[in-house]
């Protein structure tokens, strides 16, 4: 056996948008912006916190000196784990550089009705449906609701959503809330499921999502929730929806500078409160279509900006919350597929940690679980490229090539039997011959997606029955108390 020396493998593909010098420029741009332009923070307590840390505060405006930023970046965790509540290790999330998980997104007002396929308001029952379907999909690594519940007490959509989703999927959830109170309700449920405060800290079972407002504004609730999550060691996202040409510059580099800067406010706050707590930044990065004044979810710029921001965020030592699998279409068609295919493959190559919005249609205004199911297949295909090409004596196959010889075939070789199992087996992509396809009813991919989704909705039960009774009761109690609180506030 010949031994090999000085041999380096590209174990998985290399992809890069920004050079080191370019990253440096954008990073320096962020440092300058935070120091000299500053950010508005609509939260007195937070401003006090920043001031104490050495920031200059002038009215709402906070100016962050380099040492405050660099100190925060020095305490963020390198690896954080999030656990499924039933202990299934295969669904564990490891948050570290270049490791990707895909999922849906939060809060569109509308939903595509699974029965009628028409667009309507998002309802409470949709949250558990989304959770259950995602629980069954192999490529959904985490779950968001794809909507904002319209048929519960005003102000409690966030809490009901989490209560229902938690009981219908073991895949870790990314939650959101209106205010700190919702945040607390949600956390109590997470803690109940984990088996206590300490157990949660050791094995957090959800991630919280919050967002600043572009450009460079942290409103009261955003930073208030950020502080709550830091205090309770809840892994959290603090990321804007930056609109190129609207709320941030139309040039991509400028957009990246602003997006990084405003997220950094949350990073600094979280690390000042609780050094080492997990904070994820990134967000939706796209452009304003000037003809229709629509924030585009299908533009190639979304893919490019998201991948570039991923490089920047990883450069800062932070995990990335990215965007893909979404579209500007109103009704599923080829446009949905091509836009999702581009953004998913781009996000996969960038190695973003959480890639959200699988199932967003109508430029983020309508959640569509059918789109999520389509995205699941596209993600599976992108994973094939992510895995790269293995080069070894076994895969080079010189002996099998020799044994088959010129003009032969490989169909019955052991080597073929061993390795063809690694070929990607699609569930929605049709590879029939034309004749068999016709025999099977000349179905389009959309037909197959609808069939598969409805089959999951009807037949996949999810983990609802596995939820411990005690936890179930606790969740109901929390919901009741939230109702009481809302009543009293009125």
């Amino acid at each position, binding site marked *: 056996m010949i031994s090999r020396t000085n041999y380096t493998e590209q174990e998985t593909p290399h992809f890069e948008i920004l050079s080191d010098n370019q990253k440096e420029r954008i990073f320096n741009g962020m440092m300058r912006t935070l120091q000299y332009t500053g950010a508005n923070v609509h939260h007195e307590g937070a401003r006090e916190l920043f001031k104490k840390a050495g920031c200059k505060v002038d009215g709402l405006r906070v100016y962050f000196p380099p040492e405050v930023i660099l100190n925060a970046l020095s305490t963020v965790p390198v690896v954080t784990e999030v656990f499924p509540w039933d202990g299934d290790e295969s669904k564990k999330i490891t948050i570290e550089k270049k490791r990707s998980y895909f999922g849906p997104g939060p809060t569109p007002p509308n939903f595509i009705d699974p029965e009628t396929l028409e667009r309507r308001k998002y309802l409470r029952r949709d949250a558990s449906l989304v959770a259950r379907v995602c629980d069954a999909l192999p490529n959904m690594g985490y779950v968001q609701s794809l909507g904002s519940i319209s048929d519960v007490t005003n102000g409690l959509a966030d809490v009901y959503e989490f209560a229902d989703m938690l009981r219908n999927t073991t895949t870790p959830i990314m939650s959101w809330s209106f205010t700190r109170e919702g945040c607390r309700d949600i956390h109590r449920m997470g803690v109940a499921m984990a088996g206590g405060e300490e157990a949660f800290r050791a094995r957090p079972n959800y991630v919280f999502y919050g967002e600043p407002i572009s450009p460079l504004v942290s409103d009261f609730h955003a930073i208030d929730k950020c502080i709550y999550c830091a205090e309770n060691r809840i892994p959290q996202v603090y990321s804007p929806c930056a609109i190129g040409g609207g709320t941030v510059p139309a040039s991509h580099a400028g957009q990246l500078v602003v997006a990084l800067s405003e997220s950094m406010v949350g990073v600094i706050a979280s690390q000042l409160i609780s050094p080492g707590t997990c904070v994820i930044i990134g967000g939706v990065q796209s452009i304003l279509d000037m003809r229709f004044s629509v924030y585009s979810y299908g533009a190639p710029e979304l893919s490019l900006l998201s991948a570039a921001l991923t490089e920047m965020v990883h450069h800062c030592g932070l995990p990335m919350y990215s965007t893909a699998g979404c579209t500007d279409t109103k009704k599923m068609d*080829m446009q949905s597929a091509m836009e999702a295919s581009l953004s998913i493959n781009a996000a996969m190559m960038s190695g973003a940690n959480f890639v959200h919005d699988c199932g967003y249609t109508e430029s983020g205004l309508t959640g569509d679980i059918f789109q999520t199911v389509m995205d699941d297949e596209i993600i599976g295909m992108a994973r094939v490229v992510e895995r790269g090409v293995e080069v070894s004596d076994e895969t080079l196959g010189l002996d099998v090539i020799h044994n088959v010889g010129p003009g032969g075939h490989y169909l019955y070789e052991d080597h073929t039997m061993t390795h063809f199992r690694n070929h990607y087996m699609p569930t929605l992509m049709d590879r029939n011959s034309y004749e068999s396809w016709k025999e099977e009813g000349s179905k389009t991919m959309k037909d197959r997606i609808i069939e598969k989704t409805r089959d999951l909705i009807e037949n996949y039960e999810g983990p609802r029955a596995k939820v411990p009774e005690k936890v179930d009761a606790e969740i109901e109690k929390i919901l009741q108390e939230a109702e009481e609180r809302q009543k009293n506030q009125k």
Partner: protein
Amino acid sequence: MKINQMINRSTKFRVLSEDQIERIYFAALEVLERTGGMIYHDEALELFRDSHAVVKGNHVRVPPYMVEEALNFYPRKITLKGRNKQRSLHIQKNTVAYGTGSDLPFTYDRETGERRRTVYQDVNNAARLVDALSNYDFLMSHGIVSDAPNPQTYDRHQFMAMLEKCTKPMVLTSVDGEGLEDLWRMGCLVQGGEEEFRLNPLFVAYIEPISPLKNDRTAVEKLLFAAEKKLPAMYTPCPSSGATAPATIAGMLVQSLAETLMAMVLCHLKSPGTPLIMGGVTTLLDMKKSTYSYGAPELSLASAANTDISKWLNLLMFSTGGCTDAKIMDEQAAAEQMMSLFYAHLSGANLVHDVGYIDHGTNASLESLVLNQEMMGMVKQFGKGINTDKDHLALDLIEKVGPGGEYVTSDHTFDHWKEWFMPQLQDRSDYETWKANGSKTMLDRVKEKTNQLLNEYEPQPLDEKLEGELREVIRHADERHA
């Protein structure tokens, strides 16, 4: 200014490390010396016999040094020129050009919607679309001219159908050596003589071996003709992993490279310096359905890896993208075509063909060509990367606008939003506008655009005298084969 700045002007992507590429290359050399290949052509066998190769019957084995010597003589640049020497295409490292595929036997009839044999008019229409659509850089026939008087001469008619409606450079398939010679003759007429053609080649000859490791008579005829005339050519294996190549991607690449290198040695023996391009459709056989998959993610991955190998070998690369297994234009078609376009572009393959293929490369769709125009535009936009100069960083503007401000009304926005991709077919209107405009799907818009182009776009016509001369070549061929 800042000293010592390295800036990415495009995205960067690679699948294999240099060490891995070398290992695949060394493995291919081993295949050539140990396993060898079959050659079914007397002159070629003669050439090998007169060299250091070992020939037994039709079986040829080649020692590594012959390959290494041959590799020194292949050009790293080929410039193609469309008819009238317009629209040049520089094929060189890190440039990506897109084109259709060729010879699809079936077409969905645009009137009846029924699937039928592809005819002259269909190729004519594809040529017209490719001429009109800016993201296509070269034309392959798309369909096969099945209504030619004789299957032995269909390639000349097909070329004519392409030439009539397209002024872009081409990649041509041919029936055999004689067919290629006629195509070359026609090309010389178009470019103004043999010498002019040599400097301004109109097309690349598409030639393929039979995997595994077999070179039939017609393929070798074409290769030797190309070598003799210094006609740009490509030798592109179409291995199906698991059937005609190992089920592993690395193994498929080894075999495919060995097939290419065998042709490289042969052309070198015939006449050093042939402008020969490497390439292929490297994908798998779907074991459940027994179909050759044009939509498999493995096609994207293997093609990108193959492109890495081509760059390391200093060879030009003919790759594959924009194709699908979907039988019709649906979500699958869009998703698969986009994926393979994306990786072909990232990898930097020089010529990306099969754009618009549907149904495993058996069915032609003009609508698919139009859809891919948009997708290529998106992929190219992505590939531009991020400009990080002072103006694009916009730090002063960020300070001026400040927290809570807006950018819609600033001059900077007005200057820069034009850098964004401007969709022609993607719908970005709001729900109400979309509904008011008839709730159209992408397919509706693609059909409209296709009809519009076919009805309105008229490419620069062929010179009448030239057309007569070309038809004369075809007439002679038809007579010979009558």
